[in-house]
């Protein structure tokens, strides 16, 4: 009996291994490079009609999709920019709360497909979409299942440290999406308008002698009962956009994967000579009167508070979005700065 067991267990383990190993071929996705980077993006548009560059590699698409499901808010705003209403969106309420652009989502006719972390496969399938667009860093394991529902494009807005610039990636994504939905013209137009807007703002700021002005960009909200503050870093789209219009980031914390550092009030002491721009909802503003941090004497004695160089941007200024959100942010920032000058 004893000898039998001693043979049993190793055999069982060997059998398991033998059966699992062939599965290796199907399941290992190691491409040998950071998948966040994808194939290198080229500046400008090299638009091959049916070949889309995604985080997973290139993809062939045929036909013109009409029923599109977007699983992260940046893709929703990009679709609206291209003139398309998605049929399904992850977290509609969240989108309405945190993202504001000059194109409205048709909330009457769009279906909420669940949270952005775990969108419901069933809801998506029930919509019978012909294209699904989502973030690769969350959904890469679901890619094969999503493909069974509809052709799926997975992008990432967060390139690695030695990858392309975040702002170039942002433009590339909307260009690729334009390709995918046969709205290449609109995509090019959106990108062109963004550059045009940046040029305009740069001139306005130059005229107001604000070129080279140092700013700190933050977002603040309450979570788990505590105040959370994010300071945007040089590798974020927001900061790179501001650099395009001649402003400089005072916050230096190196490379942050998501484009911001989550940090405490004390960090503001290192940037107090800059102008402080923060995004918060009016009912959740820690810096406004009555807010969680407003009474703090450290906050009150920061130079930018003392000298009135604090500006509040609306809570629905979304810094992790596409060209229209970034244009809005840059314009609001410039407007605020020029009231100071």
């Amino acid at each position, binding site marked *: *009996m*004893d000898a039998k*067991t*001693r043979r*049993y*267990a190793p055999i*069982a*383990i060997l*059998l*398991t291994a033998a*059966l*699992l190993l062939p*599965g*290796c071929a199907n*399941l*290992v*996705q*190691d*491409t040998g490079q*950071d998948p966040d980077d994808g194939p290198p993006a080229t500046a400008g548009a090299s638009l091959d009609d049916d070949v889309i560059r995604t985080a997973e590699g290139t993809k062939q698409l045929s036909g013109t999709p009409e029923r599109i499901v977007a699983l992260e808010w940046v893709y929703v705003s990009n679709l609206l920019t291209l003139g398309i209403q998605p049929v399904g969106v992850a977290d509609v309420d969240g989108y309405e709360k945190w993202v504001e652009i000059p194109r409205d989502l048709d909330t009457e006719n769009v279906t*909420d497909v*669940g*949270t952005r*972390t*775990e969108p419901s*496969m*069933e*809801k998506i*399938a*029930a919509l019978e979409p012909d294209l699904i667009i989502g973030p690769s*860093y*969350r959904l890469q*394991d*679901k890619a094969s*299942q999503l493909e*069974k529902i509809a052709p799926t494009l997975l992008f990432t807005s*967060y390139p690695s440290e030695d990858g392309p610039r975040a702002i170039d990636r942002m433009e590339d994504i909307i260009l690729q999406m334009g390709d995918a939905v046969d709205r290449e013209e609109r995509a090019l137009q959106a990108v062109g308008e963004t550059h045009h807007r940046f040029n305009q703002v740069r001139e306005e700021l130059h005229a107001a002698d604000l070129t080279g002005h140092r700013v700190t960009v933050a977002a603040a909200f*309450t*979570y*788990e*009962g*505590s*105040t*959370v503050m994010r300071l945007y870093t040089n590798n974020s789209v927001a900061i790179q956009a501001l650099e395009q219009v001649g402003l400089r980031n005072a916050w230096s914390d190196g490379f942050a*994967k998501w484009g911001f550092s*989550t*940090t*405490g*009030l*004390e*960090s503001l*002491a*290192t940037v107090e000579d800059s102008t402080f721009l923060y995004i918060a909802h009016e009912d959740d503003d820690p810096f406004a009167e009555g807010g969680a*941090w407003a009474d*703090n*004497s*450290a*906050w*009150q*004695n920061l130079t930018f508070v003392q000298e009135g160089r604090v500006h509040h941007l609306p809570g629905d200024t979304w810094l992790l979005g596409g060209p229209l959100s970034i244009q809005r942010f840059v314009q609001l920032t410039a407007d605020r700065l020029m009231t100071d000058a």
Partner: protein
Amino acid sequence: MPDRDGSRDDRLRATGLSLAGLATLVAVSAVHVGQGAADLTLLDVWQVMVGTAGPLETGLILDLRLPRLAAGVLAGASLAVAGAILQTTTRNRMASPATLAVNSGAYLAIVVVALLWPAAPLPPFAAAFLGGIVAAGLVFGTGIGAGGSPARIVLAGVAVALALTSITSAVLILNDTSTTGLHLWGAGSLVQAGWDRVGSALWPALVFGAAAVAMGGMLDVYELGDTAARSLGQPVRRVRLAAMGVAVLLAAAATAVVGPVAFVGLLVPNLVREAGVRSHRPKLVTSAVWGAVILLAADVAARAVHGPVREMPAGVVTAILGAPVLAYLALRRTRDRGDPRAAVMVGPGAGARPPYRVVVAAIPILVVAAVVGGLTVGVVPVSPIEVGQVLLGAGSRATRFLVLELRASRVAVAAAAGVGLAASGLILQDVLRNPLAAPATLGVAPAAGLAGLGAILLVPGIGTLWIAVAAVAGALASLGVVVAATWSGGLAPERVVLVGISVAAIAAAASKLLVVTADVRVARALVWLAGSTYGADMPAAKLLLLATAILAVAAVPLLRRLDVIGLGDDAAGGLGVDVLRTRAGALILAAGLAGLPVAVVGPIAFVGILAPHAARLLAGPSASRRAPVAIGLGAVLVIVADTVGRGLLAPVQLPVGLVTSLVGAPYFGFLLLRARGGGPG
């Protein structure tokens, strides 16, 4: 009564320790105050004190750094005193606010109040206190009290803490605006923006701390034992209740200020006792001082390693440092209470059980019903008839896709996970002779989770298969550690359980560390860490089913041998069974059976405890007879939990691990209640 010379020695020792502690506290505080994102030195602090510093420096020191320092001192001292009291009143050196779930209860209450009634007139301390009382009530209300063995109390505490943490996670998931997965405060962070929190908890901490010290004499008497104390005229019950109330209040004060911090309340009183301080008044004072030192030191270490800009919660450091100490304490116990031969759970006799044949026939029917139910429920309604049609090969393309691809993969993975976890729990309970042993509490599941998470972070774009391999390796490693540490004691049940809990704590802390130093790659793991079938697709489901089946089959001959061992080690040896090898082989299989599900769905708790128990009630204590019933029930439990999680709040999905905790915890409490009279272990 300690003799006068003894107590004088005690006091001398305590005084020496306290003074040393105060000196250390001053030194650590000096370093602590100097840490932070802004460039401030001790010279600046001095200038602030004498009033010659600028307004910004004054603000930074007075309103940011000093509150943080005060928070560390207040929380550290309160937790240490609370731990000391709990250890005395439960006569259990492993007791502490964290291991008895007080911290989890306090934190849950704070989160719930903050989310549902943000404008509530309640100070945070009040909510924390209520939560802590409820949690302590749950742990002790199951009747364990001071009579149960240390292992059982700690396990009850771990289980309740798991359940409460799950509820907290559920609440946060449903209100999540941030998808980067940062839960800093939930990990125990000292960061303060002003004096609000410290201010609200200061008076309760001082008052109840003083009360605790005043009770020192009573606790000395109490420590002599219930009978001795009563004979000296002490109202033992009332003293116990009052003392525990004070302990919970202190722990609630600490949690209200810094969130749940583990191990300070465990470590410090034990270290003070090791240093030779016995009587309570000096012990509590010394513990308070050193508690503050330890927590501040953890915060200093965290910021020294991780930098002052991005927050590293001190609670993670205390957990990583404290868990091995828990293991050490577990191993130092020389006395093993209880008869190792006795079967632990007394179930109904053979006459009270349904006939085995009926049970074995009913199980597959239940499983089929659960599967059909799982395939029926979802966002899009599908009737059982349509499910039947699909299974028979008919039905529309859309329905077939829905049922066979989307739902079937999740149901299949749930079933396989249930089988694996139940089988693993069955083996663990049998080998370790402990009804409360399970993959989750023995660290197998958290270690597997940590290994998988590590794999995802180390190798970008790693395939699902290799995550599975890593997870199983993690499970084996953790079980190996547990076995190695208790081998010399013959794998004594109590020690194994306690070491396992330490491993679980280390793994959980390390996972938290990895998540907190957040990275985009972590986003992929967050869903999986919650214990969710969301990531399952058909290839993964098939592999898991196959691998689980293979391991389960390999376990069959072992089960008979385990039955023989149940007669007693010597008897088994006499019958030709190699006890140690059988146990070792069984444990390896148990690790594999638990590691595989974790690889695919992340950690799922309670199944490994509940399914084997329910099987015992239905089929008796024999492992080989129980096995098919246990795995069937395990599959049913996880399938139903997954179904409920998917269907209850659609399209928002609750992870199956959460649902099993929410459902499993009350049943677990019921089990503990029943086991109360049921013998040692």
